[in-house]
């Protein structure tokens, strides 16, 4: 991952050059990454709907925000939770997203084999979600909080993929829209939650 995308592969590498303390630097970096990925997630969603045809690109089209493989959008009461708890939920969601994004990429590879940019964005999104989740867990560990993030089960994603393939192309399109939407929401939520800890943000 390039530094432009906010790589956190070696978070300690930057601590030596950062004037901030280690924890603040870690939070700052993770927050920056989340902010960057929020922008990427928005671009991914726009790119995705462009390749599905109407009504996916229409403003009024909003499929029900149903859970996908037990992954729900951030709950309305999420903001009221303690910050560590919120970060744990964020980390869990970010860990659950990569296999779902992979499923969407495979479905789109069949449906839109020539949409190379969309496929690359989906692939990048899976990797970036994984990186952000790891970074959030690192922040939690630095905060001394227990991560308790459930590991994603590849079998669940595979089952989803199989079920969707059987259901047809339209459900696959809807699934991709939901996954991309969940990705955007959770990355954005993570950015907001990290903003609570970042220097300058509300305590």
């Amino acid at each position, binding site marked *: 991952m390039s530094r432009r995308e906010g790589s956190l592969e070696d978070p300690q590498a930057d601590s030596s050059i950062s004037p901030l303390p280690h924890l603040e630097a870690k939070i700052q970096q993770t927050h920056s990454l989340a902010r960057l990925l929020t922008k990427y997630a928005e671009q991914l969603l726009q790119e995705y709907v462009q*390749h*599905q*045809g*109407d*009504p*996916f690109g*229409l403003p009024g*089209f909003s*499929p*029900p925000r149903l859970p996908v493989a037990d992954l729900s959008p951030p709950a309305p009461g999420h903001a009221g939770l303690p910050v560590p708890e919120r970060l744990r939920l964020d980390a869990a969601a970010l860990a659950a997203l990569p296999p779902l994004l992979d499923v969407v990429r495979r479905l789109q590879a*069949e*449906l*839109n*084999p020539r949409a190379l940019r969309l496929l690359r964005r989906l692939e990048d999104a899976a990797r970036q979600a994984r990186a952000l989740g790891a970074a959030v867990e690192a922040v939690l560990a630095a905060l001394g909080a227990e991560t308790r993030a459930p590991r994603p089960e590849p079998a669940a994603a595979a089952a989803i993929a199989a079920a969707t393939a059987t*259901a*047809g*192309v*339209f*459900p696959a*399109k*809807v699934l991709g829209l939901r996954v991309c939407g969940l990705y955007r929401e959770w990355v954005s939520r993570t950015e907001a939650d990290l903003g609570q800890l970042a220097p300058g943000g509300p305590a």
Partner: protein
Amino acid sequence: MALFAVFQTTFLLASLSLRTYQSEVLSEPLPFTPESLNVSINSACQCLHLQWTVHNLAYHQELEMVFQIQISRFNTSNVIWVGNYSTTVKRKQVLHWSWESELPLECATHFVRVRSVVDDARIPEPGFWSNWSSWEEANAQKLLGHDPLFIFPKDKLVEEGSSVTICYVSRIHEDNISCYLEGVQIYGEQLDRNVSAFELKNVPFIRKQGTNFFCEVDQGDLRGVVLFVSKVLEEPKDFSCETQDLKTLTCTWDPRSDTGLSEQPSQSYTLFESFSGKKTLCKHSNRCDWQVAQDSQEMYNFTLVAENYLRKRSVNILFNLTHRVHPMTPYNLFPKNVGATNATITWKVRTIGNNSTLWCQLELLGEGKVIQQHNVSIKVNGEYLLSELKPDTEYVARVHCAYAKRFWKWSELISQTFTTTEAAPSVGPDIWRTVRMVSGHPTVTLFWKPLSKEHANGKILFYNVIAENLDKPSESVVLSIPASANSTELTLHQCSYQIYVTANNSVGSSPASRIVISGDPGNEVEEGRVNSTEDGFSVSWTPQSGDATGYVVEWWCDGPQDLPCVLQWKNLGPNTTSTVISSGAFRPGVRYNFRIYGISTKGTAHLLEEKAGYLEEWAPSDNPQVVMSNLTSHSFVLSWKDYSTESQPGFIQGYHVYLKPKAGEQCHPGFEKTVLPDNSVCCKYTIDNPEQKTFVVENLQPESAYEFFVTPYTSAGHGPLDAFTKVTTPDEYSHMLIRVLLPMTFCVLIVLIICYLKSPWLKEKCYPDIPDPYKSSVLSLIKSKENPHLTIMKVNDCVPDAIEVINKQEGSKIQFLGTRKSLIEPEFPKPAYLYVLPTEKNYSGPGPCICFENFTYNQAASDFGSSGHFPGTPQAPPYQLGPLTSPENVLKALEQNYMDSLDEIPAREANLNYVSQLALPMSGDKNSLPANPPEPALCSEYKMQMAIPLGPTSPPPSENSSLSSTTLLDQGEHYH
């Protein structure tokens, strides 16, 4: 065999008759009733697949039978389709038949039954339908889950333009379901209580990702399908096969539309050759290679099959291999031995088969056009000599070849550019001249036109000009002019010259062009006019009497300075008397002058005619500068003599004189009333002579304002309407007044001059100079006739006898220095005289008698005395002013003068001021004369009152010399 057939037929008839009889009489099932009917659903193709058997067929028995199939939907009574299926039935054969439903089978339960009839020619009697089989049900809804909504068909692939029926099966109320096609809500037909169908006709291709159809349940749950609409597979176009080497065939075609979708790959192409029975799957969508068989197969029958999931298309081609030879592009094309007019072209080709011959075509292109074409048969190496080329010309040689045995196609072209070498110019330059006299010598400007590329045969480097004096052959001029010039100037003698001009390039010189300059001055002719046509100017002339060898028409433009204009000429034959001069450089509104010369046999040119013309006449672009003169009360003169009619954009035909008379006045005779573009009315006079450049405006009213304006006109119109010039006629009597005033002024002037010249005399008469007593004639008269002791009175000798005292009103003050305010009070005080010496009245003794010749005296003293103050300036020394700044000082001065006189101070050493009784107390104040003027003294015309010394020579008065005068003068009283 025939016996067996007859026997079999007989048996069949017997059997059928028996079965029919049994069925009618015994009410038993007819034979051959379809049995074991089984119906299955194939959702992929929305097909009902039927299979059944026909029992009671004898061993090895085959019958042509017709099966009638009935299909009902939702219930058995709702028959939606009935059809027949004919086939040959064998014993124990399981029959298969499929039916495709337009409505997805998942949306409705279908029922099927079948019956049969023998339709065999071997049985002449008409058959009877068997009984219907029992209804078989095909119900796909049983397999559906418990979702609230199901939509079918799932991801169906159809062709563009076809009709598709989409249906849904709902578990909820129909009213809560809204369905959309590509985001646009559509409404279907309710087929059953929980089934609705949407028939989409003529579906369009929208995108490769399919057309989205979805239904929303209570604006919450969402179900949908994608309809993949494929473009219709088209037949390949321009299918063709050819070979370059008789080893490999290459077939090409135009694939036309790509029918690939997400659910369907692009159409595939398969090449099948029927003679060999071989086929190959093409790797490309527009080309396929085929290896030619080694067994010398000449004929090939290819079938190209295009195929996708929905359709197949094929095209066929049959050909002889040797008729489809398309040779490869020749190579190594080179020119060699390139000369001025020829070149050899060589090239190579690749062999085709064994010892085959190629037919090559060599084309020579000049300036992009094919100018030569040659066919050459070659094996491997080609060579051709190109001739009749032009020197110094760039050519393109190109070659392509075809199979000589049977022409099919030319190979691709190979080309090479080459340039022939230079040659000497083939013709001399076209020359012409103008002759003008400069300082008495004919100056010839020699012009020539650059040689065309066709004649130059190379790059012209210079021109040689040789001027031979025909009268003095030894005097010849040789010039070498650079190629960039197209003219030169020669100053010649008043002789005839023969001038030769040659153009030279690197190879040689051209033939010489000759022109003869005559020593005689040219004749002059009158200028005519030439008309223009669409093609240019049509110039015609009267042929020269005698033997003209040709004519030359020269022209140039006489237009604006910014217009490039060079001398042009055109050579014409001896029998020509007219020509059309056309040029893209001709412009409308520009005057062109043409001269026609006749060329004699000696080569000299004689001016025949001179003409001028316009390609198109324009209206004048400007108006003349009009000068008004001779303005009288009834007329004025307009003139525009500086206006040049030659340099106008058209032939000036005359002028319009516009005159705006005063209000209410009619147009003068000769004028016509006209309306200007600004809707103002004025009078117009038309001068139809372009050379008349003056005009007298007459019959005007005195003291009236007029406005005039002059504009020229051509056949295209008049000049621009500029502002009018205003003029006001003078008064009718003003000239009479001038007749009176002028003499009077003259007379006054004469008088003034005389007065000036006679001013001394006048001065003498009117204002004589003040006489000098010492120069008076009286003095000599006295000296000679009377007492020789008598002399001019010296002031010092005078004894003041009285002091004039002037009473001044109260409040009056004396102001002296630093101001020039008058000290004269409005009411002058009455003077009083204090006699300090005995007057005549009280003087008993004899005394000197003082006489003055007139009243004048020292002006400075007069001013001083009369004004009552010193005319001193602030710069005057105090000691000069100080003694007189008070009455006391005055009295002291008087006393001092008196004492000085007693001491007989020489008069010439003293400066005296005389205050006369008759002198005005103040200058100009005639009304304030003293009320009691002193009586004149005896023996004198004027009576001296006092003398006041001035100047530094007067000693300051001592305090003791004041006498009593100080007591006689009151404060506030003034003295004179």
